[in-house]
C-alpha cells in the first residue's frame, strides 16, 4: 500500500480555524506538573532572599550584615555597596520625550531608598529557609526623608522631592496636539466656540497585576556563559536588556521562559532580582535561585494605572462633539522601569475612542512618587483612555439631556466610513459599531431592564437599577515597527516564526511570541494544521528559549496572534513554496500544474498523482532525489511586521443593582459583543473575554493598591487587595461580530485586552445610572459599598478610603521581610 492509495477517498480535513479546541497545554499547566521556574533544581544551587526597605524614603546611614553572614547555611550577604560599580541601571526603553528625566534605577539601593520594598541587601544561602531566617539578622539604619505620595501635591512648586538631585518630581511632559500634528483642528478654538463644555476629574486608581505564579529566577553560570530561567513574559527582550545592563555579551547569555503562570503585563519587565541573580551567579560562579513570596510580589512587582485625568469635552446643543482635551498626571512611582513612561503615552491615541472629534489635545506629566514603579498592566494606557471617554460621554449626555446611546450614535464612525483616520492620526481598519451595539442590546434585554429601572425609581425601591454603556475600540497588534520608532520606543514590533518539517512528517513551529498562559500552542497548531494540511496533533509549538527561538518580541499588547500568528502563517507559506519545487520534481510535473490542498500536492488533470507535504518532508530528509540548484530543506522562517495596528471594537453593557441602604453594588447582567476579526479558537476567545471582564470589573468594583501616609502598602496581602473570584462575578452573555482585519493574513484583531479595556466604564456608568436621580454624578473606583453609600447619602464621589488594613491577620499590611520590626510585626503575638 502506498501513501498515495491511502489517501484516496479521504475527505478533506475539517478546517481547524474556527474550531473550539480545548487547549493542548492546559493539562500540564493546570496540574502544575511542568517546568515552572521555581520547579528548577540544579546541583549546588544557592537560594537568595532579599532584605527590603521597610520605609518609603530614606538615606541608608548604616548597613550591618555581620550577624547574617555568620548565620547557619549562609554563603554570602551582599549590600548595595557590593554592586554599586557593576549594577548599572535597570533599563527604560521608552523615553517618551527627548528631555525626559530618568534618575536611573539601581537593582539594589546603594545609599538611598525610594519606596517600601526596595532591595537593600541580599542573603545567599544553601537553602531557602536559611536565607529567609538570616534576613532577620540584618540591621540597617535609615535617616528618614519626607515621603512624596500624592501626585497633585508632588507637582506643586516647592514640593518635597523623590530624587533630590532632580529639579522637580516631573519626569516628562508629553503632548499630542491634533492641530499641531495636522490630524485635527485647533482645540482652543473648538472649545471657545462650543455650546456645551463638560469637565471632569477621574481617578484611575493604582492596581496590582497579581499574576498567579510569583516571579522566579534561576541563573546558571557555565564558564563565561549564563543561562537564566525566569518567569517572564519577555525572554527575548530580557536577554538584550540584561546583556546591556550587566555587560555579559548577548551571545553568552541564554534566557529561558519555561511555562509561565500569567503576567497581565506584570512580567513585561526587567526586574531588579533578574539582574541581581546574574550578578551574584557571576560573582560566586554558582547557580542561584530567587522566588518571591506573594507579599513581595504585591509590594515590589510593578503596579499599573495610577493616573489622575482631567477631561474636557465640547459639543453643540444637538450633541455633536466638537473637541476633546485631556490632561493627565501619571504616577511613575519612584523609578522608570521598562516602559513606565510609555504607558500613558500609548493611551494618548485612544482618548477619542470611536468618535469623530474634529479637535483633540492630550498632555501628560509623568510624576515621581515614593511608591513602587508603575508599568504595563493589561491594556496599558488604553483602559484609562477608554474609561475617560466613555465616562465623559455619559456626563455629556446628562448635560444635554440626551440618551447616552443616542449621543454615541450621533458621533461614532459609521460602518461605511472605514478605514477611518481619527483625530489622533490612527487609521481604524474595519468594523461596524451599530451592528455590535444592536446585538448587545438584545443580549442584555435592554428594553425590559429600562422598564424595570423606571418601575424601581417610581416605587422608590431601596435597590435601584442602572444600565451602563461602553462602546470601545482599542489599538492592538503591537506594533508597526516604524510607528514605534516614531514614538521613540526602544524596539520594533515585528514577530518571528520558523517551521521545521521533521522526517516523520511532524512539524515543529518555533514562535518568538512567548506565551504565559494564552494558549499559543493550541492556536498556532490550528493555524499550521490549516496552512500545511497536517493533523493538529502533528504540530508542536516551541517557544520561550532564546537558544531555540532566537528571534522574537514576546507577548503583550494583544499582539501574539495578530503579529506572531501572522509570522507563523507566512512561514508556512514559505514551506509550501519550497515543498512545491520538490513536489514538482518528484511528480515530474510543472510547478504551475500543481494544486496544494489538504496537505497534498496534486497534478491538475492527472487524478491520483499526488504527494503529501509530510511525505516530502521525509523525501527531503533523505535528500536522495531533489532538484538541482536548491537546498535540501523545506524549513522556513518568516518575520512579520504589521503596517498598522488592528482595532478590535465592541459594545459592552452592564446592568447594575445598587442597594441604597448599604451601598452594595451587584451586577445584574453583563452583555458584550466584541469584534476581534477572525476567530481562530472560539473557546480561547471566550476565555480571554471572561478573564478580561473579570479584571476590568475588578478595577471598577474591587481592586485598589492603597498606601498609608508613610508609604506602606496597606493592601499587602490578598485579604486586603481584593481580587474577585468566579463566585463574585455574574454570568457573561457574550457575542461577536466579525469584520476581518485587513492588515494581517489571518484577519485577526487581538482579544487579550478587550474585556479589560471595555468593561470598567460600563460598570461605573451602570452604577451611576442607578443613582444619578439621587444626586450622584461620580463615584471613585473601586466602587466600595462605603463609597457608594457616602456618595448617595453625603454627596461627593465617596472620598478616600481609610488607609488602615483590615484586622484579619492583625492588619498584616506591608510585610517587609526585612526583619525590621514594624508596627504590624509587633502586633504578632497572639494570632
Amino acid at each position, binding site marked *: 500500500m502506498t501513501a498515495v492509495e491511502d489517501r484516496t477517498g479521504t475527505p478533506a480535513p475539517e478546517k481547524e480555524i474556527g474550531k473550539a479546541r480545548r487547549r493542548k497545554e492546559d493539562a500540564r499547566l493546570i496540574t502544575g506538573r511542568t517546568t515552572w521556574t521555581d520547579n528548577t533544581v540544579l546541583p549546588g544551587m544557592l537560594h537568595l532572599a532579599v532584605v527590603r526597605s521597610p520605609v518609603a524614603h530614606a538615606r541608608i546611614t548604616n548597613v550591618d550584615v555581620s550577624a547574617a553572614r555568620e548565620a547557619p547555611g549562609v554563603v554570602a550577604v551582599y549590600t548595595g555597596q557590593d554592586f554599586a560599580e557593576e549594577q548599572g541601571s535597570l533599563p527604560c526603553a521608552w523615553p517618551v520625550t527627548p528631555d525626559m528625566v530618568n534618575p536611573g534605577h539601581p537593582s539594589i539601593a546603594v545609599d538611598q531608598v525610594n519606596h517600601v520594598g526596595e532591595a537593600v541587601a541580599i542573603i545567599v544561602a544553601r537553602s531557602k529557609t536559611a536565607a529567609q531566617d538570616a534576613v532577620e539578622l540584618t540591621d540597617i539604619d535609615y535617616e528618614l526623608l519626607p515621603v512624596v505620595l500624592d501626585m497633585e501635591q508632588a507637582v506643586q512648586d516647592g514640593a518635597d522631592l523623590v530624587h533630590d538631585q532632580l529639579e522637580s518630581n516631573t519626569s516628562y511632559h508629553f503632548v499630542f496636539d491634533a492641530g499641531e500634528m495636522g490630524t485635527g483642528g485647533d482645540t482652543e478654538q473648538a472649545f471657545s466656540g462650543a455650546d456645551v463644555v463638560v469637565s471632569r476629574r477621574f481617578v484611575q486608581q493604582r492596581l496590582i497585576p497579581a499574576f498567579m505564579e510569583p516571579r522566579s529566577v534561576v541563573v546558571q553560570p557555565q564558564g563565561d556563559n549564563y543561562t537564566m530561567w525566569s518567569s517572564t513574559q519577555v525572554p527575548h527582550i530580557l536577554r538584550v536588556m540584561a546583556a546591556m545592563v550587566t555587560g555579559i555579551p548577548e551571545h553568552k547569555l541564554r534566557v529561558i521562559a519555561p511555562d509561565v503562570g500569567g503576567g497581565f503585563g506584570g512580567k513585561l519587565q526587567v526586574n531588579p532580582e533578574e539582574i541581581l541573580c546574574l550578578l551574584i551567579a557571576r560573582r560566586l560562579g554558582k547557580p542561584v535561585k530567587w522566588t518571591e513570596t506573594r507579599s513581595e510580589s504585591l509590594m515590589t512587582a510593578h503596579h499599573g494605572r495610577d493616573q489622575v485625568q482631567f477631561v474636557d469635552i465640547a459639543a453643540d446643543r444637538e450633541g455633536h462633539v466638537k473637541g476633546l482635551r485631556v490632561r493627565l498626571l501619571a504616577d511613575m512611582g519612584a523609578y522608570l522601569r521598562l516602559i513606565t513612561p510609555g504607558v500613558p503615552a500609548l493611551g494618548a491615541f485612544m482618548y477619542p475612542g470611536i468618535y469623530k472629534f474634529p479637535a483633540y489635545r492630550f498632555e501628560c506629566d509623568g510624576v515621581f512618587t515614593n511608591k513602587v514603579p508603575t508599568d504595563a498592566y493589561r491594556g496599558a494606557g488604553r483602559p484609562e483612555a477608554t474609561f475617560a471617554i466613555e465616562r465623559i460621554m455619559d456626563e455629556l449626555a446628562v448635560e444635554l439631556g440626551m440618551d447616552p446611546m443616542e449621543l454615541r450614535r450621533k458621533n461614532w464612525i459609521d460602518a461605511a466610513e472605514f478605514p477611518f483616520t481619527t483625530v489622533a492620526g490612527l487609521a481604524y481598519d474595519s468594523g461596524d459599531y451599530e451592528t455590535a451595539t444592536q446585538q448587545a442590546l438584545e443580549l442584555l434585554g435592554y428594553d425590559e431592564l429600562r422598564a424595570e429601572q423606571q418601575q424601581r425609581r417610581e416605587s422608590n425601591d431601596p435597590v435601584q437599577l442602572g444600565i451602563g454603556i461602553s462602546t470601545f475600540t482599542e489599538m492592538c497588534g503591537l506594533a508597526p515597527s516604524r510607528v514605534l520608532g516614531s514614538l521613540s520606543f526602544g524596539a520594533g514590533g515585528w514577530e518571528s516564526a520558523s517551521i521545521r518539517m521533521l522526517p516523520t512528517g511532524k512539524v515543529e513551529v518555533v514562535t518568538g511570541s512567548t506565551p504565559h498562559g494564552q494558549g499559543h500552542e493550541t492556536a498556532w497548531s490550528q493555524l499550521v494544521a490549516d496552512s500545511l494540511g497536517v493533523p493538529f496533533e502533528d504540530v508542536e509549538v516551541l517557544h520561550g528559549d532564546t537558544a531555540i527561538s532566537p528571534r522574537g518580541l514576546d507577548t503583550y499588547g494583544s499582539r501574539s496572534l495578530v503579529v506572531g500568528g501572522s509570522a507563523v502563517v507566512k512561514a508556512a507559506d514559505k514551506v509550501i513554496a519550497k515543498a512545491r519545487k520538490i513536489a514538482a520534481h518528484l511528480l515530474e510535473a510543472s510547478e504551475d500544474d500543481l494544486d496544494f490542498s489538504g496537505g497534498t500536492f496534486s497534478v491538475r488533470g492527472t487524478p491520483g498523482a499526488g504527494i503529501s507535504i509530510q511525505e516530502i518532508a521525509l523525501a527531503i530528509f533523505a535528500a536522495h532525489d531533489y532538484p538541482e540548484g536548491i537546498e535540501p530543506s523545506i524549513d522556513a522562517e518568516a518575520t512579520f511586521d504589521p503596517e498598522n495596528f488592528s482595532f478590535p471594537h465592541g459594545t459592552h453593557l452592564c446592568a447594575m443593582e445598587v442597594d441604597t441602604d448599604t451601598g452594595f453594588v451587584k451586577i445584574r447582567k453583563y452583555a458584550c459583543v466584541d469584534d476581534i476579526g477572525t476567530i481562530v479558537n472560539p473557546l480561547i476567545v471566550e476565555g480571554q473575554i471572561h478573564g478580561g471582564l473579570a479584571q476590568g470589573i475588578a478595577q471598577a468594583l474591587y481592586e485598589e493598591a492603597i498606601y498609608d501616609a508613610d508609604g506602606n502598602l496597606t493592601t499587602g496581602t490578598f485579604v486586603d487587595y481584593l481580587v474577585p473570584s468566579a463566585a463574585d462575578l455574574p454570568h457573561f452573555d457574550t457575542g461577536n461580530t466579525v469584520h476581518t482585519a485587513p492588515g494581517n493574513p489571518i484577519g485577526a484583531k487581538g482579544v487579550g485586552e478587550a474585556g479589560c479595556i471595555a468593561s470598567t466604564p460600563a460598570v461605573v456608568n451602570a452604577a451611576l445610572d442607578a443613582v444619578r436621580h439621587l444626586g450622584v454624578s461620580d463615584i471613585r473606583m473601586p466602587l466600595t*459599598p462605603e463609597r457608594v453609600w457616602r456618595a448617595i447619602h453625603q454627596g461627593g464621589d465617596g472620598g478616600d478610603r481609610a488607609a488602615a488594613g483590615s484586622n484579619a491577620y492583625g492588619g498584616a499590611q506591608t510585610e517587609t521581610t526585612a526583619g525590621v520590626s514594624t508596627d504590624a510585626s509587633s502586633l504578632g503575638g497572639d494570632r
Partner: protein
Amino acid sequence: MIPAPFAYARPTTVDEALQALAAGGEDVKVMAGGQSLIPVMRLRLAAPETVVDLSKVEGLRGVRDDGDAIVIGAMTTHSDVLSDPLIAEHAPLIAEATGTVADRQVRHRGTFGGALVHADPAGDLPAVALALDAEFVVVGPSGQRTVPASEFFVDYLTTAVGEGELLVEVRVPKLAGEWGMRYEKFNRVAQAWSIVAVAAVVRRENGRIAEARIGLTNMGPTPLRARAVEEALAGAEATPDAVGAAAARAAEGTEPSSDLNAQADYRQHLATVLTRRAVSAAAGL
C-alpha cells in the same frame, strides 16, 4: 513565605496536649486547623517557640446530643459543622454563619474551636456563639472549667482561654419554643471576612417578639450583644416598623474600627441595616 523555626508536638490525648503546652517553653501555640495560625506564622507576625498540633488528639471532633444542649468538639471542622444533623436541628444559625466562612479549602481545615479561640473581631462564629448563649469548656493544668459566652471574649484576639489551657468543647443550649435565626453577613467578595455581620435569634409568641438575642460581628475589638436592640424588641410587635425602630439602636455603645473596608460611622450604619434585616428574617417577616 517561610515561618521562623519552631518545635512541633503532636499529642494524641488531651493530657498529653496539656503536658506539651506546659513543656513547650516561653511562647507555645496550639494549632487546630492552622488556617489563622499558619498565615501569621508565615508572615512572621507570630513566631512561637513550639506548636502543639491538636489534629491527632482523640475525642475533640464531632457533635453530640447532651440532653438540653448539643456539644460541639473544638476540633470539629467548619465543613463537619455544615453537614451535622444536630446543628441543623438545634442551632442552624451556626451552620448558616459557617457557610459564609472563607472557601471550601479553608472550611475543610479550619475548626469551630479554632475560630472561637482565635476571636478575630471579623470572624463570624464569635457573635453567633454569643447570641446562642453558648458555654465554653476549657481544660488546663488545674482541671476543667466552663465559661459562659458573655465572659469568653475578653479583648482583641483574646479569650478566657489562658496560657497552658485548651478549649475542648462548646455547649450550645437547645432552645425551647418558636425560635427563628438569621446571620446577615456583609462583605465584598465571597471568601472575605465580615465588614460587619449580625446574628439574630428571635422567639415569637402570639404575633409578638418575646425575646431577641443579637450578636454583632466586627463592631469592636470583641463580638458584642446589641443590648439596646434586644430590650427594644422584647415584647414588641412583630412588624417591620417595630423591628426597624429597634434596629436603629444597633450601634449604641459600639466602637468599631476604621479600615479600608469601612470607616467607623459607616460600620455603625451597616449594623442598623443588617440588624433590621437579620431580625426581620429571624422573626419571619
